[in-house]
């Protein structure tokens, strides 16, 4: 496996293993996520890539039967250390989910500020923060005249960008995205991809996707996950996106990226 991390590694996983009950679902995943790079996690359904994504901000442990081994290092500090509050981890590592899910009872503006309300923050400039966050998620121009409208009055693609803005308002260093475009039409997908590219200037992004073209369009590096019959999921190949797609080393990677299975 080629080591492509040239800049200082921001987020790193070391031998991450996951169990659900007795079932071993992920084995020894070690990946580097350098600053200002977008990393795509690809692989067939059930290979553990979404599960792996959730270990990166400790959402994984919310499932009662979940087990974990290994390390996840943010700037060299293990986020699974005993004295680390998972809530603090999630403040630094934001997450966007598969289906757009703005809080239905809140307005557009309230959604952007929801993280600050949930964590009981004070002393921020609300209107400034709302504008910057919505601008960074490239949705400001579409909603600036109706910030007090219900969030559900937006289209699916706009809702997803609002969810991105909601995460950005907390100013995370890393943004995790779990198939953020799988419920969206091609036009909305393209806009989200543009947003991802812009955001990568200022943060580390990890994105799970089923869309091979999307992985090639937005990511700098790609990890191919695979769970073979009865075995836990693992990373088969990891490297620069160009290499993984155009000159894969493992034949299984070659088969997958060329659409032969999955």
């Amino acid at each position, binding site marked *: 496996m080629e080591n492509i991390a040239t800049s200082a590694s921001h987020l790193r996983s070391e031998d991450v293993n996951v169990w659900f009950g007795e079932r071993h679902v992920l084995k020894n995943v070690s990946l580097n996520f350098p600053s200002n790079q977008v990393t795509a996690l690809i692989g067939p359904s059930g290979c553990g890539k979404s599960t792996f994504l959730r270990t990166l*901000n400790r*959402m994984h442990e*919310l499932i*009662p039967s979940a087990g974990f081994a290994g390390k996840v290092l943010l700037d060299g500090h293990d986020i699974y250390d005993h004295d680390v509050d998972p*809530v*603090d981890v*999630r*403040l630094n590592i*934001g*997450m966007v*989910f*598969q*289906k757009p*899910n703005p*809080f*239905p*009872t809140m307005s557009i503006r309230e959604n952007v500020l*929801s*993280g600050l*309300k*949930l*964590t*009981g923050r004070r002393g921020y400039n609300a209107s400034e923060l709302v504008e910057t966050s919505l601008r960074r998620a490239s949705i400001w121009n579409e909603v600036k005249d109706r910030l007090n409208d*219900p969030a*559900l*009055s937006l289209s699916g693609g706009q809702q997803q960008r609002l*969810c991105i803005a*909601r*995460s950005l308002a*907390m100013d995370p260093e890393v943004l995790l995205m779990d198939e953020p475009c799988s419920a969206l039409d091609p036009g909305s997908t393209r806009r989200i991809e543009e947003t991802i590219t812009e955001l990568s200037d200022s943060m580390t992004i990890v994105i799970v996707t089923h869309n091979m073209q999307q992985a090639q369009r937005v990511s700098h590096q790609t990890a191919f996950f695979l769970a073979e019959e009865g075995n836990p999921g693992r990373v088969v190949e990891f490297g620069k996106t160009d290499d993984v797609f155009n000159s894969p080393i493992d034949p299984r990677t070659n088969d997958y990226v060329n659409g032969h299975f999955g």
Partner: protein
Amino acid sequence: MSDIQDVTAEVPARRQLRTKPFSLADRLFYGITKSASSISVILVVAILLFLLSQSFSTFQTQGFDFITGSQWNNAKGHEVFQIGPMLWGSVLISILGIIGGVPMAIAAAYFIEFMAPKSVAKVATVLVDLLAAMPSIVIGLWGLYVLTPVVAHWGSLLYGLHHVGIGPVSFDIPLFAMSDGSDPSTFGGSPFIAGWIVAVMIVPIITSVTREIFSQMDRDLINSALALGGSRSSVFMRVILPTASGGVTGGVLLGLGRALGETVAIFYVLNLVSDINWFNILQSKGGSVASLVLQKFGEGTPNEIKALMAAGLVLFVLTLLVNWLAAVIVNRAQPWRKL
């Protein structure tokens, strides 16, 4: 070769579309569901008409005082039938039951749905549903023999608060006082106890409905709130509860329906007195329309029975009003539902 469609031709006449089922089986099914839903409407209307016809003479002789007055006398020639204390008593007990029961029910539903291990959640769900199926006479007897002494103890502690003095500052909490200097050593038969009985009875219903609403919530909605760094309690207060509020209100209403109409259990624990008790909840004096009917019906005079029918009608209308009001509140509280 593809073709360009010609759309300039005349539009054909609109055709009749069939909206009713076609096959015999479907028509039969349609008929059964339709008549089943009609029956419930017909029953409600029939009951309403029956009560109206029976209670008409009472409203004629008693006038509006039937609802506001506080006297009850079935002696021939001196007949006065007024249900003011009973009506207010029903409302007061329901309010107390809701205050006591709703937080308990919501907390239980949250625990079962979001915190308990699966095995515990299963057992707890069954037990809660079993509590809902408990006959009210059983709860009434349990209330009389078990709950009354316990609540009386707490009542005596609360009574201690009816006059609080710290140094030069002193103030009264009239809620916990007695209106007439009656013996404060016993706290049995009070609306306070009846309220707790009602709370015990409505907790399973509200828990059941609330748990169902919680279980249907989008898990990723809750997860995104947690991913933003929310704590369990802030996510509950700011996301789960507001999103579920409509359904939870529905559950509370079902409970309120039972609370307002509860008869036997309250009859056992409450001292029914035809003298209005506005808010002295610890006093051994209260009212309940449904329990009044139970108390008087067996040996009622013909006119008295008609008055009891009228009381039933008033309770019926009150319940309808509460339901309508709640529907309005739920709609107002959730403008996003209409999107």
